[in-house]
């Protein structure tokens, strides 16, 4: 036992020299870490192994997580689900959709036109990064990617408004269509701001909530302006 205790103090000594292990009687169950098939399955149920499931299920599970977060944005009831397990798939999806929908406008004909794809991308991502840095510098308790996730998911009402605007613009671009677009964009801008502040404002010290909310307001206002001023080329 004294020898084995000595061995225990040098745990990997036996690996380098096989001849030593022949001298020392091996005691106990040494096969625990590798595990039998039963213990492996037990661990797998705890940690949710994704190795042996179909690819379709993996993708569907992620899509379901993204979808459930969309629902959280639609009903912003101060749930922490959007904050707890963040992902950036949803924001990427929304940002690409918005930028694609903003293409094909009057922008392409002359250089004084609307925002290009890259400009939308830069405004959305750098805008949310700057807002996040601002809230961190002001002493917010929320983490960097949580804040990016919330700001990205809350673009969803504006992306939906953009889709509605494209449909309305198919019908024509007169005064009525402008009023309809104005109402839709204003409503979705308010919705975006309200939803994101419902998630973000709680992480701030009480005297600084307005300082954090104002940049968020400005961010969605600018995106709303881009959506509203989109005019298609004939």
């Amino acid at each position, binding site marked *: 036992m004294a020898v084995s205790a000595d061995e225990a103090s040098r745990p990997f000594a036996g690996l380098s020299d096989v001849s030593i292990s022949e001298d020392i009687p091996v005691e106990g169950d040494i096969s625990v870490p590798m595990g039998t098939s039963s213990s492996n399955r037990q661990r797998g149920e705890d940690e949710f192994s994704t190795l042996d499931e179909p690819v379709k299920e993996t993708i569907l599970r992620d899509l379901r997580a993204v979808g459930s977060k969309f629902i959280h944005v639609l009903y912003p009831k101060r749930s922490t689900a959007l904050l707890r397990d963040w992902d950036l798939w949803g924001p990427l999806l929304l940002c690409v959709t918005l930028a694609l929908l903003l293409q094909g406008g009057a*922008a392409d004909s002359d250089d004084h036109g609307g*925002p290009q794809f890259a400009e939308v991308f830069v405004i959305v991502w750098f805008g949310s990064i700057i807002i996040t840095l601002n809230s961190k510098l002001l002493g917010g308790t929320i983490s960097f990617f949580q804040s990016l996730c919330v700001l990205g998911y809350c673009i969803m009402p504006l992306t939906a408004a953009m889709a509605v605007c494209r449909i309305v613009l198919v019908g024509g671009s007169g005064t009525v269509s402008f009023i309809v677009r104005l109402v839709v964009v204003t409503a979705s801008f308010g919705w975006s701001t309200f939803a994101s502040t419902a998630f973000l404002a709680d992480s701030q010290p009480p005297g600084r909530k307005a300082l954090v909310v104002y940049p968020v307001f400005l961010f969605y206002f600018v995106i709303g302006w881009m959506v509203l001023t989109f*005019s298609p080329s004939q």
Partner: protein
Amino acid sequence: MASTNDPFQFQEFEEAGNLLEANRDATTISIEDDDLPDRQRKAAGFTPDDEDPLASDDKTELLSGQKNSAPFWSFEYYQRFFDIETHHVKERIIGSMLPWPGKNFIHVHLRRNPDLYGPFWICTTLVFALAISGNFSNFLVKLGKPNHKYSPQFGKVTIAATAIFSYAWFVPLALWGCLLWRNNKIMNLVSYSFMEIVCVYGYSLAIYIPAVVLWIIPFEWLRWCSIVVALCLSGSVLVMTFWPAVREDHPKVIAAIMSAIVLLNVLLAVGCKAYFFSKPEAALTPEHPAALELTKA
């Protein structure tokens, strides 16, 4: 002077202080009025505070209200410039819009705690306000024209951002360098840090945000009125703030610095108005040749 004296002769230093006062014009000495007693105490060497250097460091740190430990690449260094509450920002914006005679913006509102929140977000708001309201006013001017096609003119955001941010950063940088240079030549009692100058310049732009929104209305007299009001308010805040810093200088230098400050301010305001807001007459003139050609044909 201090090297010739024995450091333990405390009573000598009252005299030395008087000598310093008398010798004020000497170019090599630069002592600010508030750290003079501190130096005397340090030179004396046996004040009770000096028994524990750490404690005295803590005390000076707490008294001055500044942390000088964090290096500039760390997050904490920048957190120092965002250490403000909502009501501070409100007070500072109002203070930058309503100059009061004899009230120095840096001394009354900043109080050795300059922030970057206000300057950054005021500049960003001004950039988008300029681009959006300029676009909107163009839309209003050309509303009735049949052959006009609306375009969002998104590229103007980039131009506005370049103009505003370079004004809000490079002018304070140049002014800071200039004040530093003058401080070496001639001793001024008041000296400002770079962040304080940036902060004053950022807040002095706040008055332009309502002015720019007012420029949407296509009346030239209203635009010029609002420009003059905004220029007077922000210019007087800047002049009153930097007046104590150059007061001791030659009259020529004072005139040069003050006129540069005011001139750059005027240049920014008038340049923005001329570039982003086209006159109604100017919008009409390109139409005339086309109309003439149409009538000829």
